[in-house]
């Protein structure tokens, strides 16, 4: 039986393209995916390591299991849709708290997906809106001037997250290194995203192995970091 050595979790609002990103990377193809139910588990061989990847459902109904998917995670990919600023806001509002159960030195990557729609201009991005239910109509109000998320917004969120986790920016990879803009449709930056993460996860696996079996200790002695949600990021 292959025991996974590291664990990566994809989080983000529904319809931002988590499953598509993973499918693009694993199967080298892009197709219409259906709404994920719960979470789906994949195993990826990277060098001599088995890295497990959890593709989770963005739907609110599955939130209860979110912390279970994140337990002991080595890296978390927070995904948003560059054409929907609300999806970036949701990351902070809804998904960040799910990461409390992740490993204490967990890596965070922030990924803006669907850049292909941004490049093609407003017309198509509005057209695509029709098939992305539930995004609370964000950006629909004035389709002529689509509000889009810039990379700087993601960088800002990354710094906020480090603060929330009470991690020192110096100990963690630089924001520029951990914020990606991708397109699962064209494949833009998708390999870069996953492979950068895998390369970062491997040394962490080695470190964890050196420390002996961490899981049991980790969970029982685990104290959630102080919630500083309100106020700190005014």
């Amino acid at each position: 039986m292959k025991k996974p050595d590291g664990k990566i979790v994809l989080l983000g609002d529904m319809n931002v393209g988590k499953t598509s990103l993973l499918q693009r990377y694993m199967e080298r193809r892009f197709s219409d995916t259906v709404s994920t139910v719960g979470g789906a588990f994949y195993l990826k061989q990277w060098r001599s390591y088995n890295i497990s990847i959890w593709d989770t459902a963005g739907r609110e109904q599955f939130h209860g299991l979110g912390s279970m998917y994140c337990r002991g995670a080595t890296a978390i990919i927070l995904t948003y849709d560059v054409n929907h600023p609300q999806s970036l806001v949701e990351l902070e509002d809804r998904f960040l708290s799910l990461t409390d159960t992740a490993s204490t030195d967990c890596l965070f990557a922030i990924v803006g997906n669907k850049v292909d729609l941004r490049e093609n201009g407003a017309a198509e991005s509005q057209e695509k809106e029709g098939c992305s239910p539930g995004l609370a109509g964000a950006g629909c109000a004035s389709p002529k001037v689509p509000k889009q998320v810039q990379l700087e917004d993601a960088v800002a969120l990354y710094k906020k997250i480090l603060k929330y986790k009470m991690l020192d920016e110096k100990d963690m990879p630089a924001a520029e290194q951990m914020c990606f803009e991708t397109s699962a449709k064209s494949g833009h930056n998708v390999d870069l995203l996953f492979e950068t993460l895998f390369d970062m996860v491997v040394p962490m696996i080695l470190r964890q192995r050196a420390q002996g079996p961490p899981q049991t200790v980790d969970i029982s002695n685990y104290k959630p970091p102080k919630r500083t949600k309100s106020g700190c990021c005014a």
Partner: protein
Amino acid sequence: MEAGGDTAAPAPEDAEDLEDTRFPSEEAGNGGGVHEDLPDPRDGGLEETGSETKDQPLGMLSPLPQSEASSYTCGLWDPAASENSPTGDSESDSGGQGGDPSDEDWRSKRKHVFVLSEAGKPIYSRYGSVEALSTTMGVMTALVSFVQSAGDAIRAIYAEDHKLVFLQQGPLLLVAVSRTPQSAAQLRRELLAVHAQIVSTLTRASVARIFARKQNYDLRRLLAGSERTLDRLLDSVEWDPGALLLGAVRCVPLARPLREALGVLLRRCTAPGLALSVLAVGGQLVTAAQERTVLAECRLDPADLQLLLNWVGAPAFAAGEAWAPVCLPRFNPDGFFYAYVARLNTMPVCLLLLSTDPEAFHDMATCRRLVEDGMHTLGAMRALGEAAGFSNVPSASAPAYSVQAVGAPGLRHFLYKPLDIPEHHRQLPQFTSPELEAPYSREEERQRLSDLYHRLHARLHSTSRPLRLIYHVAEKETLLAWVTSKFELYTCLSPLVTKAGAILVVTKLLRWVKKEEDRLFIRYPPKYSTPPAAPAASADQASHNGLFTGP
């Protein structure tokens, strides 16, 4: 006459019924005006009957003379059509095209199913976008509360060729508006299945809690993505009516020794907290094993099993190993199980493991490997692959057999549900039917056959005058439906068959089923398994998991 008997003619008591169906015209006169309340123990409700024709003789398959119907008409959405406001159009983001009640295309649908909240907020519509329907849904809420204010409950409205069936379930209101020949009881059962599907993703308790807290909550937020499962469920009624109509599950035809070996395998591969293991191919059951301590008291309801079989058929489970909460509404509508779903060996064979522990994913994954290894040892993968690969329809990965296998010329299709299952297996109603072949390959043809089956079923199970045998000559086929203490059977025969010929064909079919029953049905389902050190977790304790806790 017994299931496998040699007698060709229906027993004498059935002959009477046969007579009855042969002279329907005599009763046609009083059909239009009959006004009866269906006795229902649950809510002594009122049956709003415009032209209630429950007692409709089967022969009258053409539309009834509508004497009183016009008073009600189908004006339900006429007022809505004109005053359909454009509000919400700017963010009409779900359901896609149409939904405007004045839209011809939308109106021409044979059957609409709506789910709305007590406050009249749209939750689901089979066709069109729910936003455009808010006024129509308002009318429905008004109808319901009007009758409610009189201390009664609306159950159905019969209007010209439409039936409107209402079903209130907690804070949810379900409405079917149908032009199909389905009876109100059949439509109600369909609505119950839709409700069960909703409960299975959210639990009844959480739906109640949400609406208790915020009456005008938009439940679509939580059901987003589940609409397709509901769509598939409702589609299945039209294309493949067996499961819902007969309240039974379809089994993969499989040699008995192999099925039993797989049952033993499932029973052996256990893990702490594992409550139920199911092997399925294309929505059909191979075998299942229940864990004693978890499910001993309350046997698994076939409706729950059918729901699980539909659910694991979702395309979302096509890749990877999935882990998701699921509620079994008949078992416990307020608690979650945790389901591990995986396709074995990239085959259409699907393994479902239900656990009571939200953290048990890796235990279940280990268990799956045991099952997989065991199946390799048995060589079961190949056998199941062959069963699945038989289908003529390349797209369908569901196991099927041809009606030719029966060797009864003139027989086109049938549904057979055995009722003589050994006593202790009563809990697992099953049915079998061959693949739909020409001339039932096109959508309209399948729909027509499904309609005919529904008509016959409604007639056999009519609450006022149930029948045991119906011989019905339709325009393009001849049907014979027959229910005895041993089986319930619906056959579709060539239109040119004579009555004697039909009886001969049915006799042949019954002999064939008798001969094949070990292969077609799970005659002896596996007994309980006893996993090591099962924690005393119950489904109730799990209710806080996987749950949205507040708007």
